[in-house]
């Protein structure tokens, strides 16, 4: 038996690579890098007493977008009252929300104080009422929502460009974006579905 100076043999590490390869492959296979994406919305508060109460708003401030069970889109506001194609919806909505010509049949400009900015003249009281039938296709509903959202973001971009000299996305998240959002705030209201297209 040798005394003392025996050399400890090195651990054979040649298989470490293989083991980690197996682990790697396992995680490669199980990984689903699905980043969920979608259209964020906030549903209105639930208040059982107010269901039947229609909030009284001046007629000029309301735009109704009806999607019936045949998936036809009908738009009604102060200047338009007809069935439209989805591709027209964005421009109609933008014209309605912004009311660039100060049309007396479209939403009125009113003083509105934006916190941290001051009082502005904007169509703060406008409402877009989105009505669907129980048989409306979800995809059509989604595309309508998408177009309306796009109308808002394009208006926000335009106003942010005019006011802050940059697009909405480039504006400061804490200070500037809330101002822009306040100027053109999202006023899409979704009412209960009714039976349109049938006897009313």
């Amino acid at each position, binding site marked *: 038996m040798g005394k003392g100076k025996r050399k400890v043999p090195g651990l054979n590490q040649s298989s*470490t690579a293989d083991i980690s390869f197996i682990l790697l492959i396992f995680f490669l296979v199980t990984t689903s890098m699905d980043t969920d994406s979608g259209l964020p919305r906030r549903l209105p508060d639930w208040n059982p007493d107010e269901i039947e109460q229609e909030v009284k708003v001046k007629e000029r401030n309301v735009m109704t977008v009806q999607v019936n069970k045949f998936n036809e889109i009908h738009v009604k506001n102060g200047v338009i009252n007809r069935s439209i194609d989805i591709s027209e919806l964005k421009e109609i909505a933008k014209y309605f929300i912004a009311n660039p010509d100060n049309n007396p049949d479209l939403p009125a400009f009113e003083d509105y104080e934006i916190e941290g900015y001051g009082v502005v003249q904007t169509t703060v009281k406008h409402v877009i009422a989105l009505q669907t039938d129980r048989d409306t296709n*979800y995809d059509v509903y*989604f595309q309508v929502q998408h177009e309306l959202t796009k109308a808002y973001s394009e208006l926000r971009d335009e106003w942010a460009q005019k006011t802050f000299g940059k697009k909405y996305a480039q504006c400061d998240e804490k200070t500037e974006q809330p101002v822009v959002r306040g100027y053109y705030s999202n006023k899409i209201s979704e009412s209960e579905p009714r039976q349109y297209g049938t006897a009313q």
Partner: protein
Amino acid sequence: MPELNTSSLPDLIFTVLFFFMMVTSMRDVTVNLEIKTPVGGSEIEKLERKSLVSHIYIGPPSKDYRATLGSAPRIQLNEFFATPDAVRDFVHAERESMFEKDKPFMKMSLKIDQNVHMGIVTDVKQELRKAKAQNVVYSATKDDKRK
């Protein structure tokens, strides 16, 4: 010719391994529905902070279930098929499992098939309003080419 030194190979592999371990989120729910979410354009936002998100699936049952359940759209919460009434309990259960500070920021991701009719969607939405889970996301696929 000298042999290639492979002693750092395990380290390399481990680095890649750790990366995948980090980004992996084990799919905890098997969806028994056939869902093709709508396609949107510029307005589609990525969902951040997955821990705040709960999913509600609505769509026709997948092939294996069609024999027993038919092809009418169903709601799936976690592993189970459910009726709209169950949504409220589901929301409460999901909310209970969250950290106190995160509760107000809870988001419901609605994964709904394109061809579902609005009736069932509205029922679910009403239940969500009753359950005070008003932050919803209409789950969709983003098409970058679309204007």
